[in-house]
């Protein structure tokens, strides 16, 4: 390979690798990165940086504002740790009591303000076949 091409390749390569490294250190958008932590460690450290949490929507905890249906509060449960979450955007269809969710946002004064809410992408209905077999086919047919 001639020297010119070799040095060009080396140059291009190092520029791009530098670029990837640089963006990894200084992402321009504050929403580019989030620290994945457990609800428990968030409550212990009360960090206000952008975080991502996973857990289950506590049964019966979903409260939707009467005036603005987009505004919603619920309790995120991970193990025994519980955290109040506020989310005020269009909710995914699979969001409901007991759903597994991942929320991203910031913790402020005892409440977690989420701007992203993902539900587990279920390829099927999870659940015990034993319980499932209790419902009758006729009930579904009209």
């Amino acid at each position, binding site marked *: 390979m001639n020297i010119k091409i070799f040095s060009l390749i080396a140059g291009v390569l190092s520029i791009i690798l530098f670029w*990837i490294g640089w963006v990894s250190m200084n992402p321009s958008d504050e*929403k*580019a990165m989030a620290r994945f932590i457990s609800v428990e460690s968030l409550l212990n450290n009360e960090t206000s940086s952008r975080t991502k949490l*996973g857990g289950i929507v506590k049964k019966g905890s979903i409260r939707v504002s009467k005036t603005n249906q987009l505004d919603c509060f619920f309790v995120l449960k991970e193990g025994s740790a519980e955290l109040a979450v506020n989310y005020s955007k269009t909710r995914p*269809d699979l969001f409901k009591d007991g759903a*597994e969710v991942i929320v991203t946002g910031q913790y402020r004064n005892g409440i977690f303000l989420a701007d992203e809410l993902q539900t587990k992408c279920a390829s099927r209905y999870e659940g015990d*076949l034993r319980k499932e077999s209790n419902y009758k086919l006729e009930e*579904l*047919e009209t």
Partner: protein
Amino acid sequence: MTPIAGGVALNLALGCSVLSIISLIAYNRTLDYRLFLAGQRLGLAISFFVFIATFILGYQLFISNFDIDYVARYTSFETPNIFKISALWAGQSGSLLFWLFILSIFNTITIIQNQDRHLNLMPWVIITMSVIQLFFLILTNFITNPFEPTQADFVVQNGNGLNPLLQNITMAIHPPTLYLGYVGFSVPFAFAFSALVNKDIGALWIRSIRRWTLVSWLFLSIGIILGGWWAYQELGWGGYWAWDPVENASFMPWLTATAFLHSIIVQEKKDMLRVWNMVLIILTFSLCIFGTFLTRSGVMSSVHSFTESSLGPVFLSFVFIILISSFGLMFSRLTVLKSPRKIESVSSRESGFLFNNLIFVVMCFAVFWGTLFPVITEWFNGDKISVGPPFFNQINIPIGLVLLALTGIGPMLAWKGTSNDKLIQNFSLPIIFGFIAAFIFALLKFTAYTVISFSLCIFVVVAISSEFIKGVRVRKNKFNESVFISLYKMIEKNRSRYGGYIVHLGIVLMFVGFTGHAFDKEKEFGIQVGQSESVASYNFQLTRMHEEERPNHYAWITDLRVTDASGNFITNLHPEKRVYFHKNPDINKRQPHSELDIHSTINKDIYSIFSSVSSDNRTAFVKIMINPLVKWVWVGGYILAFGTIIALWPRKD
């Protein structure tokens, strides 16, 4: 009874794969031709038993035999027939069997096609393919068997059923298309591996796999585009690409495969880049397996325990085995692989290809880096930091723009080197057009990236068109034909080249669509009948909202009248809120679903989602998005497929 037959078929396939590998290895030692024939036929027998197993599972799904755990989990009596069949690839064990099924189709074709061709390569080709089959057979036999019976102490009345989100025809086609792409690369990989073992490194093996590679690439591309299209039409977040680990898993092998498609041209024409081509096909195949791993193991998508699976380590070890054995073999053959020829000039087409390859691979690395970022940061400082779309966009937009530029530059370079006169002659027109476009877009106050992207698109389109015009002009003068005939004949005479240019045009259109994303607008609001709300320069009036009960769901339907700024009627949108299984007494089993409505035109999509309805049934909460130029992505996809088919079309001779 039949479920047992399925399990037995899988056992037999496993046995055949072991025997096939043993007899072919014995053939390589003894050169007793009977052993080769035995190995070849056993190779066909593996596939035969896999076909039987797949058909049995398909049939059991079809007749809803809930004695099989898989059938009970993924289908129910109400599941429409077509989705009973597509349930074959809805779950883990079924989708692994389906992978194996496609692999077996490809293996059968390869073996039959090459009965009296490439005789020196075939033994190791069959061995390699059988080893891959063996891996999937081990998985389906011992780790996650699709024929596992349901627990014996109770009778399943009805299965769990398929999620309504997946009851969509695109969703039925998307996974198999992707699989065809993923699996297809095992054939070129097997040939490459065999070429390495046999030290048969010239351009011959490349020629034998060019078509396979293109077919697999086409399926992978269509699979990716369909996935985006489905997400856009069904999921209701208004986008088609989210840099999700599973999406990245399909994008990474696509990138290296695209690089491979380009660099094999150099090996075919100039017998250069031999080592590099080996690296690319090994990487592509490993990334295909790695992609299946990312999709199936659930390591990435997630928090602590989204879909736990025992498959992760097994897959990862297989990827390592592939990488170590192929790269080990490659290094031991390095002296043979060394190409006698060298690239002579920076402005040659060879070097153009080399740079395009470099950028593709680096982009693949960037995606890999982002996808595994949480894992990497956890290693370094114990913090799991996940990165989102803004991160991927920031890194990849400039790299993608360089690639876009190369799409135009590459074809205008001549083999071996381009003289300065030629450079000026070829580049002046596209560059002038590009600059004029840049000036106009800058005047319109677009952002820097948008200006660069649009003007590069113009640059590439002018460059490609001038290639077409040049070719047609030469033919027209030489043979005195009409423009259309000479265009047709020119493409027919050199399908792979002009097919490739058409693919480039498709890519340009897709870039136009991607760039349109910069102008997206969205708004979420609650609205009552008679009220209206404006988004961007459009006005949305809720004229009616009614409820309807349908066979398998209950629906709230809105009528949104859309007008533009000056009050002209544009369209009526009818997004719906549905609840499936609405009669199920268990409220948690009811499944809400937003059926969105899109008004799609060539310059913008008006995208509406009905997210919820107030308890008094009077206020509808909707989300409206104005997404410019999205349609260009789909149109670009069609053109890409069309161009690939032209390049693939067999010659008459």
